[in-house]
């Protein structure tokens, strides 16, 4: 459970860095964020499009790790029972 919580917090922290940073970048570097990329402003492109793949990647990574941790936990418990 502690390792699961640590994993959850690490994933949440990664996401929160992005979530907290974007308004700050908008606030302090408006020139940079209003640069155009494929017609979008940079900030629009990040928020309107790139954010979604970011959460997909984080959640995919989390699921894989989390299920692996559960398997380890279950494996360790059944080993104990055998001995």
């Amino acid at each position, binding site marked *: 459970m502690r390792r699961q919580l640590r994993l959850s917090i690490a994933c949440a922290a990664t996401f929160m860095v992005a979530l*907290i940073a974007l*308004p700050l970048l908008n606030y302090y570097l408006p020139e940079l964020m209003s640069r155009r990329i494929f017609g979008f402003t940079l900030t629009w492109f990040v*928020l309107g499009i790139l954010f*979604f793949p970011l959460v997909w990647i984080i*959640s*995919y990574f989390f699921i894989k790790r989390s299920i692996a941790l*559960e398997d380890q936990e279950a494996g360790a418990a059944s080993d104990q029972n055998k001995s």
Partner: protein
Amino acid sequence: MNIDLWIVTFSALTVIATIGMGFWSARRSKTAHDFYVAGRSVSVGWNASAISGEYLSAASFMGVAGMVMSSGYDALWYPVCYACGYLFLLLFIAGPLRRFGAYTIPDFAEGRFDSPLFRKIAVTFVLFIGFFYTMPQMKGAGTTLAYIFPGLPYWAGVVLVGAVITLNVALGGMKGITLVQAFQYWLKMFAISVPVFVLMAVYGHYGEHIKVNSIRPSTVAGWTSYGGMMSYEGSEIVRKITPDKAPKDEAWISPFGPLTTKAAQAAKLSPQQARPYSLLYTYSLIIALVCGTAGLPHILVRFYTNPDGVAAKRTTMWVMILIGVFYLFPPVFGVMGRNLMPELYNGLTGVKGTDGVVLRLPTILDAQKFGPLGSVLSGITCAGAFAAFMSTFSGLLVSITGALAHDIYGRILRPKATPDERMKAFKLFAVVGGACAILLGLSVESFEINKLVGWAFAIAATSYFPLLFLSTWWRNITMRGAATGMLIGGTLSLVAIASTMFADQAKWAAGLKTWYAQHPLARTLAEQPAIWGLPLAIILMLIISKLTSRTVPTDVRMKMLVLHAPEKLGLKQEYIQEHHAAH
């Protein structure tokens, strides 16, 4: 808009398909278990589609596009945070909540703290959030139907949507609704994406349309305007000149625009002075939307339909993907609407103004060149809007019915009821809940209630989210701590938001309005209370739990094991068990 045959056809098909699926699945829902949690056997794909279908309400289907059109960049936070909220649900709540094996969230509240009192508090919040969320759905159904079919009275839409869904819920319960909601997700996805692709093929793609919203169009060379239209050098997009009521391009496309500066504008601050308030507003909005999503009871209850905790986690990931893909499209409508249909900046609220952009934008396709294509696409988006009202209301009604039939009747009033009686109770209370929702919907026609969904999110973020988060991960939380934090956090946030609404609308609160105008900081914090409400609730829970640490449930280790142990260990113990013997 004249009554269009295509719109009638597609809307009618959606309603008929919904009723048909209700009857079809009614034959397959036989036990109380089926009615409350769909037999706990919904596969990942079905459940993810159903949760997405339930979550994408009319506010998502039409409102997000309308908000992007009217407020620009800042409105993008809504779709992004609506989708990202599920990440928190995945990381902290989905797996443990499912493993607990309850029927409803109040079940969890009672079981986790061994406290029947806490069930009552939790059930009050479920009903409160449920009806708060229901009223705007009903009003939306009424006004949209009256708008699509001119001449129909307001009550027709409310009664139609209310009656169809009440029938479905009463016939099939959670199991019946799962199929309908999953179907309605894919219908909505189809209805929002196909028109976007067609419109982009004809009028230029998403990026091109944003490109012509240049930061300073009037001062930049390269613009030519003629006869109400203007075009930009080097771009094929021809845009209509935006009326004066619309926000200027610069404010529209850059962050900290009209949406987040209301408080500062009331205080007559310069744009430069207003920026810190906008930043604060943005952060608070993010917290409310992200944590609110992870605390909406009618969404959470769907996780109990998964077979186990791992499936619950997988489901959440797929929900994020399904919802994320959907949310790429509404902003495109908003952006194209700004360039191609600026007449919607008419100052009217609801579907008559910018919120109608999803329904109306396809009609700009020239009938002579494209035949009935514009009408067909508009019919499809109208059908999508119908699906949105129906699927969200069906989820809300299941949640409300669960609270009434399971928590109040089955647990508080008649704990000894047999599963068969519980199933009958579900059917009965579905009709009662549906009737209440219709009556409430009929009585709010003239009220400005679109904000209520925002209220529901703020309350969920400051009450349910901290409750679920701490009680799944912190073993020393006590009932008193949890209840105090939840009640005070939720209530103060509600009072704060309500005060800004009264200040704006009620005459007796004129004094408050002037006070808020002088104190933009207070106004910002009151309008978006999550930034202080959530920490307040968590701190209260921590402090009061420390003070009452003697009342930590004695078997808390066992409870934590049930919440977190993998199913493979064989410790699975459903809080509510099905009594097969009764059938």
